[in-house]
């Protein structure tokens, strides 16, 4: 059945949801909302709704997997059956297993695993509703959950996906743009260290488009890092970012 291909970018340069090429979707972050977990964070990014939680450091089970000089970092990215348009079987799919791995590899450079030998640190990312860019949103929330748990980290980790829609580089593709566009590039960075810890590319980019999308992802990542800071401030410093002076010798 022939269907006119949806115009993803209008003649006015606006995308289907009204955004400009470099606009992020609305993002909301909350830290420390799960009672049992050692650390947790909830993110709403566009229509994505994702909960990340951390347990650890804790004992390693099964015992034979224990590492003598560092923590074992475990990560599971899982999508709830009701999180997508067609109900998804709850058993982990190959896609979820791959994403679990890349998320772990994106977070691990930031976690000082050497400070916790013979332990496990478990990161659980549950996607309650998915709408494009969920792995970057998951990483952004997971990094907050790790900070909430008080695990020593060299830096925060923050992710953002950029890509190509009808030959235009755009920031933060939603589900429709990801499915019907020409390319998606999830990127995660450690903002202070200036290092990339996640990079995946699909699509066809010219050298210029590749650079533009890549640099845009990093720029947006730094913007979102500011939101991570605010979320941690809300949780730990009563919502006001300040510095105070105290008398030397006071408690």
């Amino acid at each position, binding site marked *: 059945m022939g269907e006119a291909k949806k115009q993803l970018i209008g003649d006015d340069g606006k995308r289907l949801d009204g955004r400009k090429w470099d606009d992020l979707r609305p993002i909301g972050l909350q830290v420390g909302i799960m009672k049992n977990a050692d650390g947790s964070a909830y993110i709403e990014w566009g229509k994505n*709704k994702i909960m990340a939680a951390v347990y650890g450091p804790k004992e390693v089970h099964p015992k034979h997997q224990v590492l003598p000089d560092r923590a074992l970092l475990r990560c599971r990215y899982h999508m709830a*059956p009701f999180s997508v348009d067609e109900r998804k079987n709850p058993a982990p799919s190959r896609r979820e297993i791959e994403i679990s791995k890349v998320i772990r590899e994106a977070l691990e450079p930031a976690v000082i695993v050497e400070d916790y030998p013979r332990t496990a640190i478990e990161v659980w990312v549950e996607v309650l509703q998915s709408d494009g860019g969920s792995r970057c949103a998951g990483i952004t929330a997971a990094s907050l959950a790790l900070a909430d748990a008080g695990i020593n980290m060299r830096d925060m980790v923050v992710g953002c996906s950029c890509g190509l829609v009808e030959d235009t580089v755009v920031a933060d593709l939603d589900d429709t743009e990801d499915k019907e566009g020409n390319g998606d590039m999830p990127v995660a960075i450690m903002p202070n260290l200036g290092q990339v810890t996640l990079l995946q590319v699909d699509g066809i980019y010219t050298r210029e488009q590749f650079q533009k999308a890549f640099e845009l992802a990093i720029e947006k990542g730094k913007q979102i890092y500011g939101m991570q800071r605010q979320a941690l401030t809300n949780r730990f410093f009563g919502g006001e970012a300040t510095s105070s002076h105290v008398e030397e010798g006071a408690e």
Partner: protein
Amino acid sequence: MSMKKNYVVETIRKAQMIQLLAKGKRIDGRALDQVRPLTIETGLIQKANGSARVTLGNTQVIAGVKIATGTPFPDTPDKGLLVVNAEILPMASPYAEAGPPSEEAIELARVVDRGVRESEMVDLTKLCLIPAKSVVTVFVDCNVMNVDGNLFDATSYAVVAALRTSKMKKYVVKDEKAEATEEWIPVPVERTPVSVTLARIGERMVVDPNTEEEASMDMRITITTDDEGHICASQKGEASTITPAQVLEAADMSIRLGKQLRDQITEATK
């Protein structure tokens, strides 16, 4: 592995618990027949046909409904399908693990399913599109997000609230094929089953046990009632005995509390 076996209640706490129970009180200040604060939020997952988040004290469950079409079972060619699933997420408790559902999670899903199915909450005959060929399948998937006791009731309330607020596309049959129209109709919900769980600690029965109480209980019983106060499902848990008198005591409490809870659930899902 049973989660309860891993959580050890401090002997001091257990002693305080027993002392208070003898005076008709519980360790968190509740009366024996008092349910923790219950909150119900619906429509949080827009991509789902219906959804609900329930908190019962610190226990938190999210249920999501997804509608699909499928083939009916051969012995019920004119009935739609209802599938209830539950997962206790690894993030929900330090004692929960990733992997295929444990016997706890499976029992949870099946008991909740039984309460919904036996009460005929969803009229499955209204979900038949083409008898013996095509029916509507209603999936209800539950994620336990945080464990603090009484997963049975929290999950049941989430499933009921999600179903009561679920919408589906209206199907029409054209040329012997079922097609979805653009018209949205409510999922055919007829009644509201309410599950009430009691735990026995020492000599006393308490309603809606939290983690500490579950770790101290030696017997649990869940009873589900429908709008008429009829009992439509029940499950006794833990490797222990229960006297007939206690069973009837539980039934009476479930009918009484079921009424109050039903009012709260229907109010929250109007």
